[in-house]
């Protein structure tokens, strides 16, 4: 049996009893043999007079180790102290076992080793003990923090906790390198406690942060999805600036990335991506809304124009035409009442006023039909040419030039018509109003030279179910 293991297994009882006992030079030392269950026989050295005073310790030890028998002094004693003593003399036992007499040197060996053991056990008893419990607590707290995904949601705190743990281990190691009695584990203990505290904080923060991130991401994703739907239904089909549309598309892609991160439960990433998405979507939305609001500042003027046109129709019982660009509708009035309504197609840049020739915008204003072009006279089946530019348009164009809104070389343009060849499912004209040929036939018959035609951006407010322009795949007009 290895000496170290033997002492470790039995050390506690020995040391307790040793501390309590005294060794005197002239004291008779006794040899105890212990036979424990499933163990080889061990040897204890003990001054006989200690046994009685510390019999209780020994008894507990023997009970714990389930000893079968012991040898007390020169006699063998049953381990069960309540049982009757069955003993033989040690010398007799030795003789019985070895067939020789008990040698004198064995007792002298006892004398030599016992003081060493006594000092050792004293040192072990009074040496500072390492804060094992504190370290175990720190280990548990760190494990909890890691499992609570603190690395993602409370990274700084976990990092600090791990740093404290490393320092605590180092401090522990440093003390372990010192002599038993000069060790001081207070720094190591403090660091282990700090690590526990930080790890628990990190664990708690991580749980809160994760839940909060989950909720924020979920809320942000649904808000953005709604915004995307609204943007698409209100503005997607509008000829908004391509740069804005690109930003919106970028936002949409970021939103999808956010959704995927959310699905794989990376809520932190989901929040980050949703923030990026919100930046682009809201920027595009705000920009379009702003320009639309600016445009719709003209609504009262447009409504007044339409009202005047309808009133004129009612007063003169004549035909008058009102074109609503936003609704992509052309209404024909007679006697102030709608007698026909047609879906129309416009130029690709139909949203907004016409500023100059070639801008593919349809002008807004109060006009009259200048010329009727029958079949064969127009490139687009039949046409009703309007008197664009009128005086107001010319004044506006001059102002735009002065303000630098159009280049100085720009021309105002003209030849704006209501013509046929419509029904393509797209805004394709150069700024004219296109109808299907059969509807153009009706319109052509109803209108005459001089018929008022008022073209407006919209007749309804932006929020009032407006924005039903044309998209590439919009339903039949």
């Amino acid at each position: 049996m290895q000496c170290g293991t033997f002492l470790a297994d039995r050390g506690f009882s020995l040391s307790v009893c040793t501390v309590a006992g005294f060794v005197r030079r002239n004291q008779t030392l006794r040899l105890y043999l212990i036979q424990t269950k499933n163990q080889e026989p061990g040897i204890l050295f003990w001054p006989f007079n200690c046994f009685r005073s510390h019999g209780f310790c020994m008894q507990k030890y023997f009970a714990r180790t389930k000893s079968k028998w012991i040898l007390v002094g020169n006699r063998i004693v049953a381990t069960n102290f309540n049982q009757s003593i069955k003993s033989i003399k040690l010398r007799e036992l030795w003789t019985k076992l070895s067939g020789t007499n008990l040698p004198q040197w064995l007792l002298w060996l006892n004398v030599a080793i016992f003081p060493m053991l006594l000092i050792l056990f004293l040192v072990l008893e009074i040496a500072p003990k390492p804060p094992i419990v504190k370290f175990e607590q720190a280990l548990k707290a760190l494990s909890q923090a890691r499992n609570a995904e603190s690395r993602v949601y409370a990274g700084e705190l976990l990092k600090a906790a791990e740093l404290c743990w490393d320092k605590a281990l180092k401090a522990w190691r440093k003390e372990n390198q010192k002599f038993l009695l000069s060790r001081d584990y207070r720094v190591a203990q403090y660091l282990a406690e700090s690590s526990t505290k930080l790890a628990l904080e990190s664990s708690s923060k991580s749980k809160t942060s994760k839940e909060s991130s989950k909720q924020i991401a979920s809320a942000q994703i649904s808000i953005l999805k709604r915004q995307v739907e609204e943007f698409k239904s209100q503005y997607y089909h509008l000829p908004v600036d391509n740069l804005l549309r690109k930003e919106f598309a970028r936002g949409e892609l970021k939103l999808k990335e956010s959704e995927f991160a959310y699905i794989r439960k990376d809520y932190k990433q989901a929040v980050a991506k949703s923030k990026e998405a919100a930046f682009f979507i809201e920027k595009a939305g705000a920009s379009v809304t702003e320009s639309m609001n600016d445009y719709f500042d003209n609504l009262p003027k447009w409504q007044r124009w339409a009202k005047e046109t309808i009133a004129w129709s009612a007063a003169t019982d004549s035909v008058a035409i009102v074109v609503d660009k936003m609704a992509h509708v052309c209404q024909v009035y007679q006697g102030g009442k709608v007698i026909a309504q047609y879906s129309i197609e416009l130029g690709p840049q139909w949203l907004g006023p016409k500023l100059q020739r070639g801008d593919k915008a349809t002008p807004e204003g109060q006009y009259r039909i200048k010329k009727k072009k029958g079949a064969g006279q127009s490139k687009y089946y039949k046409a009703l040419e309007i008197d664009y530019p009128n005086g107001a348009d010319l004044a506006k164009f001059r102002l735009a030039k002065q303000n630098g809104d159009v280049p100085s070389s720009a021309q105002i343009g003209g030849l704006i018509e209501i013509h046929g060849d419509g029904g393509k499912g797209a805004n394709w004209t150069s700024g004219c109003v296109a109808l299907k040929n059969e509807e153009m036939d009706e319109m052509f018959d109803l209108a005459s030279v001089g018929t008022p035609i008022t073209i407006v951006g919209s007749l309804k407010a932006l929020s009032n179910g407006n924005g039903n322009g044309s998209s590439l795949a919009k339903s039949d007009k």
Partner: protein
Amino acid sequence: MKAKQVVAILAIVLAMSMMIGCAKAPQQDVDAAKAALDAAKAAEADRYVPAQYNAVKDSIDAALAEVERQNSKFALFRSYGKAQKKLQEALTAANAAKDAAATEKEKVRAEAQDLITKAQAAVEESKKLMKKAPRGKEGRAALEAIQSDLTMVETSITEANTALTNGDMLTARDKAKAAFEKVNAINQELQDAIAKKAGLSKRAK
């Protein structure tokens, strides 16, 4: 007197044998386990298999604490068997985490690569569909908006490819997936428009 000399010699021999018999800290095992943990971290086990990585960290910490627990004892009472066992278990777990991370990373990489390929093919399909899509006399004007979307999809695919090259497979997969879904929506819009155009043509006939 002779007996006393024998006893003294025996005592010295016994003391020396006790000192020589002291167990030694398993520094090699500690170093090996730490190196394996570093290797697992380098393989991004903390990102791709976080639960496994955390378990490795825990077991290494526990093993190091056990080593110090033994170091705290009197030299003769030290026994590093338990610490050694823990360190060996941690080493095995770290190697397993490293392998699992590599497998998972490769799986995500393959998914991302597949999505990028699909998205690129879908972009090509979009370009073909745009040629067939309804257009008026102004040519591409009506499709400019869709072209803007498509440009952003291509940007996203490029970003996914960059993330893939940089080894950020999760980001690459998310970006590729987003691009793929977006381009599919664009294609659907184009196909609807083409179908509508075809329907109108038939009605005209």
